[in-house]
């Protein structure tokens, strides 16, 4: 469903991704881990063209998104993204945050969009917060709204860039719970995370990035029990 072939990305002279190839099946949950600066975020952001790849191919559901002729907005409608710092729209209520893109980008009617939005709010456990502004929510609540906002576009794949790293410890769980139930519902997910427990438990696959290279690509059991590379062993020693 997602095929990445020899993906390169540089910022000026700094080569951040040095030829990444991977393919991800529909419904798969992939945890991307690796040291700081290894290119995890950059890899994720290439998948919805928040960063323009320098070379290589990214194919999502049969569309080559790096092709100049593809409509970037259409690609992004199909790829949801959740950020470390939520980035909710502060001048809109929770409900308006969720309604905005389906109504204005997908052109759903207000009724259709609202019906879906309320269903999503139930799913993330925030039905009672529909009319609050983001400023009044806790970090965990904000992140759950951000997940609902991305899901409202009914994307084929969801990208998460360290969704729990900015949260107080007691709020991490509520967000991970939502993500787990999303994984069980069959959503294709690519998650950059430092939560090793979550990666082990919820992911079908672990990708270990180091220095812009995909060093390991294995099942969680295999990766955590028998990391092949020295770099991965060192990394795991520090994390666990």
């Amino acid at each position, binding site marked *: 469903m997602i095929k990445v072939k020899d993906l390169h990305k540089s910022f000026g002279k700094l080569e951040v991704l040095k030829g990444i190839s991977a393919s991800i099946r529909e419904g798969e949950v992939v945890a991307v881990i690796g040291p700081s600066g290894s290119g995890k975020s950059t890899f994720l952001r290439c998948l*919805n063209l*928040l960063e323009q790849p320098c070379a290589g191919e990214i194919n999502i559901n049969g569309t080559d998104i790096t092709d100049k002729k593809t409509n970037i*907005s259409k690609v992004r409608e199909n790829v949801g993204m959740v950020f470390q710092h939520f980035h909710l729209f502060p001048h809109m209520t929770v409900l308006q945050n969720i309604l905005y893109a389906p109504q204005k980008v997908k052109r759903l009617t207000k009724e259709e969009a609202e019906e879906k939005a309320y269903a999503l709010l139930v799913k993330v456990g925030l039905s009672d917060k529909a009319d609050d502004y983001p400023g009044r929510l806790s970090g965990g609540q904000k992140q759950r709204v951000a997940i609902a906002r*991305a899901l409202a576009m009914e994307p084929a794949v969801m990208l998460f860039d360290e969704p729990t790293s900015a949260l107080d410890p007691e709020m991490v769980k509520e967000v991970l719970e939502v993500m787990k139930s999303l994984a069980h519902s069959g959503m294709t997910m690519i998650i950059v995370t430092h939560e090793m427990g979550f990666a082990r438990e919820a992911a079908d696959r672990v990708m270990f990035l180091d220095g812009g290279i995909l060093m390991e690509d294995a099942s969680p059991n295999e990766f955590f029990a028998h990391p092949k590379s020295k770099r991965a062993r060192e990394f795991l020693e520090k994390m666990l």
Partner: protein
Amino acid sequence: MNLDFTAIVPSMPYILQGIKVTLQIVLVAGMLGFFLGILLSLFKISRLKPLGWFADLYTSIFRGTPLILQLMLIYYGSPQIIGYQIEPYTAAVLSFALNSGAYISEIIRAGILAVDKGQQEAAMALGVPYPRMMRDIIMPQALKNILPALMNEFITLTKESAIVSMIAVSDVMRRAYIVGGDKYRFFEPLIFAGLIYYCLVMALTLIGKAIERRMRQSD
């Protein structure tokens, strides 16, 4: 000292009527300047470099020359440039709009740049096209932050508008001056005009504070 404020009492209504003229110029020029400012600020942050150069050049010219020069160029220069004499009121509104557009564009540009970059990324990640994103996501947040600065610009405009009396627009200033000439006493009508400007500025300040307070409540 030879002061007699009772002498100008009969002329006070005449001077007061100038408020309408002053406010008309300030409001219309302020609105036009605001829209011009939005346009120029979008040019300034645009990826199309020539648009940015144009907006920067425009701003530096209008900020780098006296407002009264701009006013007189437009008023006295109009017959040579467009072939007929434009109305003093038109010249006043035009020059003030063009001038405040330059200042307002800088204020708005700073406001846009101050909006968290993540807002733009979140909008882009949802597939929101650039114009919509600017209009619905970035601008509302930018304008909210710069409201005090915008109000300041409006207040400056109100005070500076007194120079339109130079091209015979009968605003508060001009009327006070005429009354002074009539009565051979300038001090009293000018003090009265000063009082009017002061009250206008105070009223604008209070309105601005009230709007700000309401905005903050919605957070």
